[in-house]
């Protein structure tokens, strides 16, 4: 991909995550601090909307996720899961926070799997890691 398209695609992706990511973080924090599960759900929905917007941008530019993007996504998911698990085990989170964390993690995993399944089929989704390692990513 030439540099111009790389920059344009990146700006569009950042624009999508800049808005939906901020909304997601804001509503998740709001839900946790007010112990309002519905507000947290709005945050989860915003995170999924960011992911969908990312997919739409990718489709517009005729691209798939790059290895860097995939790695970043997995790392973020791993970090969220780790922080949530440690917090849960160590300090005993409030009921709403537990449900928020579980919903977020489950929703992110489900969305990612749904994407892979619709794109590559259920079986292909599991073999994506090997495929990527052999064929490499976009960049």
């Amino acid at each position, binding site marked *: 991909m030439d*540099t*111009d398209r*790389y*920059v*344009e695609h*990146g*700006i*569009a992706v*950042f*624009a999508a995550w*800049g*808005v939906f990511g*901020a*909304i997601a*973080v*804001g509503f998740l*924090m*709001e839900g946790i*601090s007010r112990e309002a599960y519905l507000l947290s759900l709005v945050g989860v929905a915003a995170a999924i909307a960011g992911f969908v917007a990312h997919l739409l941008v990718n489709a517009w530019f005729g691209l798939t996720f790059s290895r860097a993007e995939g790695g970043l996504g997995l790392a973020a998911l791993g970090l969220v899961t780790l922080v949530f698990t440690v917090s849960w085990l160590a300090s005993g989170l409030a009921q709403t926070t537990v449900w928020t964390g579980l919903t977020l993690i489950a929703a992110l995993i489900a969305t990612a799997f749904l994407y892979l399944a619709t794109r590559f089929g259920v079986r292909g989704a599991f073999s994506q890691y090997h495929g990527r390692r052999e064929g490499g990513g976009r960049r």
Partner: protein
Amino acid sequence: MNLTAAQIWLIAFGTAYVAATSFWARQCSLREKGARRYLSATGELPGWIVALALAAVSLSAWFALGLPDAVARDGFSGAGLALATIPMALVGVATFKRQWQTARRFGARSQAQLLAFYYRSRGFAWLSGGLAALFAVAFAALQLAVLGRLMADLSGGGIAPEPATWLLSLMTFSYVIVGGFYAAGALGALQCVLLAGGVVGLAIAAGELGGGFAAINFALGKLAEVPANAHLFQVSGVVRFVAGADDGGGWTAALVLSTALALAGVQASPIATQLLLSARDDRAVAAGQTWVLAAFFGGLCAFGLVLVGAWGMAFASKDAVGDLLARLGAGSPWFMAAIYFGLVAGFQALAAVSVLTAARGLVRDIFVPDFMPDLSGETANLIGRVAVGLLMLVSVLLATRAPAATVSLGALALPFAAQMLPALVGLCWLRWIMPPAALVGAVVGLAVVALTDSFGLALMDFVGLHLPWGRWPWTIHSAGWGLAANAATILVITAIAPARRASQRAATLDEFFAGLGAPRPPARGVSSAAWSAALAWLFAGVGPGLLFGNFAFGQSGGGFGGWLLGMPPLWAWCLLMWSLGVILVWLVAYRLRLATPAGVEIPPIESGPEGRKRAAGLRVDHLEALLWALSGAGALITAAAWTFGH
């Protein structure tokens, strides 16, 4: 040191934002031809990015910060300013396509080159360069100072206003100096989205903290029932023949109209043209002006920002945005920080593009052609980078050390930019506007703007000449006075000059546009209907027709029960006019095809407007003339101040 939640979230969002801008600036600088294109990106950005960046630059943080405060302070007569997005879009629709086409055909890379080429006058290069510098230094400093103070307030004293202002400037400088114009334009699209998110967030916060839309309007209704508050809910008249608009009598229709013209001036500024010429094609002009600027941002202004102002009015806050964010920060610091950096993004969109346009104008359009014609491109870029640094330094010094000068100088930027409008209309449409008329008209317009605004009044006072009027006499904004003087000068010079066409270039352009296919309406009568609709909208939306808004949807002083739509009648009128304005812009842009692409390839001609190279080396004679002129002007002002001043 214990950080408060607000400080933590400001740091978190600020770090993420700086990381994003720095990353993309670096990516842009790594492009193959990054060094060569540092000061401009002519024809390199995709249309959608330019459309978004243009919207961000046109509104910047200025609308989001200024409009709610105007409503909170002066009432719903100030809400008429929310409709300024429609005149802005009309200016863009009427001039952008032809500017882009002309530049593409004749190789112009800036507004200075475009106008200097068409009117065969170096004067326009100087005007355009100076205007860009005014935006980069004073207009940016104005927003920088406000955002710096806001950051200090929101951080609860964690950072003082001056360091906050320096920090914001450094954040902008860090990506501008690395990425150049391509990065500034590309990030402008990202900043546009963040600004829109910030404005939406502000409106939601106002609704939430005000107890909901109905509760805010109920509180407004209580205010409206008090006779002393009548001026807050109605336009005070068509015009008031007073010395200055600061007499406390509220906004008149003339003030709304002339201020809307001033705000629309940004579309005629060299900043807007520079971004426009960065587009690869003209496909996104119509969509950008119609759907992004007029429809989306127009709606955000007419509903969202006015709601923030209404919240401020209902809760007796004159600094609506600041107070709203402070209250939001107490309960939801994450939202406060996100909204704040949305506003910062709006400011940076303008600051980055304007400082690069100014550096380009000063170096490429003034210094190189007039003082050192054989300067290499690389050296010019290096000087341009130094100019970027100097301009930003002056801007931040102005913002932190000279707040009064910042306000009076910054206030000139938009009305000054509006004075380029007749020259641009001449380039795009009116061939009878001759070069001397356009240039003299613009200069007279600038002088009249200065003399009817606070800067010129202070300057005249300094030299001992006390003008018998105040800021914005007869409640007409300086932009209105300037445009009237500008147009009158053009008409007089055209009338007394020998009857001939503007120049050979006018014939060339006519031939060029005819070759592209004239914009014909699809049906007879659509054209006249559209122009009639435009005039009618200007009358009813931002002109004397605003007075209908005082009573069209109920009695303004009748309170909540007397308002037909459960909101102040003038606000409802503005929303109606916004929706009609969007239809109007669509009609002009799409049905009249003023902004739709020509659909044909425009091959550039071989010799561009830069023309042949002149004498080699430094033009000492030109430099001497400039120094003598500056010294003479300085001496004259000093002598006058010494003799007559006090």
